[in-house]
């Protein structure tokens, strides 16, 4: 469990099978190795968390899985398709919510849904029904006619997740979905995500640096540090294996540091985090 096992290159999306397979993935930016030989697999229908401090390589890994970045080495398969050679097939099967708020503030909530319905290729005849479905799933009824820029942080996140559900993704990638939210908004977002998983069986791959969130909502976790996957398993398995009471202690046991002592990401990461905090109020 702690040592990431070699994974079979199978990811066909059948229930119980692996929908995401990452095999010895490496991403380098010049001299910097952002992801250094990471391997893991995500089963259909589970909530899988990538846990680690800023600069651990979580977002870079997700960017490879969503076809935004080409890996330097290794390979990744999402719902049976190679992210490099079959990017379009991958993009048809996934939903992606980046860390920064990607809602267009100059459009209303409903117009944002309409826009993403169009660009994610939802057929015109099904668009209205899909939008209604996403509205109900994420509980957006009360603010559909408000401009994006007037919404609270929690509303924005729920709207954003709703826009990512319109193409009925097999896998939903959520990059720090609750960062910058207050506890109430955070709870509401997770309530909706749990409901989504229960009702639609959507596989969720979530990055987070919040231990409590990872503990409570993820079926399995991969702990990342400095581009490496240092431990993997369910929260209970990880605590048991390292004989420690919390995931924070698991991180310390595997890296020799506390989660707060991470590299902190780049200047751009820090600037983006501040901007995000401002947008979320």
């Amino acid at each position: 469990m702690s040592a990431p096992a070699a994974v079979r290159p199978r990811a066909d999306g059948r229930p119980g099978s692996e929908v995401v397979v990452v095999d010895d993935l490496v991403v380098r930016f010049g001299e910097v190795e952002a992801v250094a030989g990471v391997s893991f697999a995500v089963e259909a229908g589970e909530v899988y968390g990538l846990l680690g401090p800023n600069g651990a390589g979580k977002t870079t890994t997700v960017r490879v899985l969503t076809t935004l970045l080409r890996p330097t080495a290794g390979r990744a398969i999402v719902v049976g398709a190679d992210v490099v050679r079959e990017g379009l097939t991958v993009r048809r099967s996934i939903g992606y919510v980046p860390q920064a708020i990607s809602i267009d503030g100059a459009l209303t909530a409903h117009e944002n849904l309409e826009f993403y319905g169009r660009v994610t290729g939802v057929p015109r005849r099904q668009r209205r029904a899909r939008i209604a479905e996403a509205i109900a799933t994420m509980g957006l009824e009360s603010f559909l006619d408000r401009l994006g820029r007037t919404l609270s942080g929690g509303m924005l996140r729920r709207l954003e997740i709703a826009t990512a559900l319109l193409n009925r993704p097999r896998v939903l990638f959520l990059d720090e979905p609750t960062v910058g939210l207050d506890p109430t908004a955070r709870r509401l977002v997770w309530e909706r995500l749990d409901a989504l998983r229960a009702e639609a069986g959507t596989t969720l791959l979530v990055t987070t640096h919040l231990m409590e969130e990872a503990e409570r909502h993820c079926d399995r976790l991969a702990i990342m540090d400095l581009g490496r996957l240092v431990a993997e398993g369910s929260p209970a398995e990880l605590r048991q294996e390292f004989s420690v009471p919390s995931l924070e202690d698991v991180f310390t046991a595997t890296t020799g540091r506390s989660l707060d002592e991470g590299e902190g990401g780049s200047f751009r990461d820090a600037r983006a985090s501040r901007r995000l905090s401002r947008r979320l109020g």
Partner: protein
Amino acid sequence: MGWAELRKLRHDNVDILTRSIQPLLWLFIFGTALRRNRALSGGYHDYRAYLAPGVMAQAALFIAIFFGLAVIWERDVGQLQRLLATPLPRLAIVLGKATGAGVRALTQATVLLVVLALTGISLRWSATGVAGALVLLVLGTGGFACLSMILASLVRTRERFMGIGQLVMMPLFFASSALYPLAIMPFWLRAIARVNPLTYEVHGMRELLLGISAGGSLWIDFLVGLLFFTTTALVAARTYPRAIL
């Protein structure tokens, strides 16, 4: 994306009016001051009318060139990443963005045309002439918007882009036939203007709206506009995803 731009304009229709002020100042202050100058108007009797197509193209150029700023903003707020993770082909995203710029340019051009009609500035008001001029305007705006996206994919910050945007835009504007005919330019400037797509855009619009030509066929103006748009769109489709790095 053209649809989204129309929606945004509906929510913030003051924007199009404020953006129209600058071209109107060019037209009614610069144009009025030099109204009787026949050399600047290539012999045409009213410099304001001669200037009108140039000012419409210039206003659209401003919109298009600073569209790259929107790309950098979209990268910073995550919209770009979202778009690139959708099944839309890269070329469709670039064309969609260019359409958005075209929609804004068309709306602004419509406002200017209404003002021109109300103030009695003598254009040749034919439906095909106006439609043809607007098509040329959209082709040029699309091309410059794609050029702006290419620049945005190479630049990291909005501040840097502002500097580069100015550096590109002002020479494009002044080394073209937007303000004055090529005939009065020195040889070296005329040579630059002849490879500037804005020159062909304005030349074609002037022929369609005023019925005057500085030589060369109208179809060449359309061909240059089409080639410019196609080439920049294809290049932008390749470079645009680099903007997220």
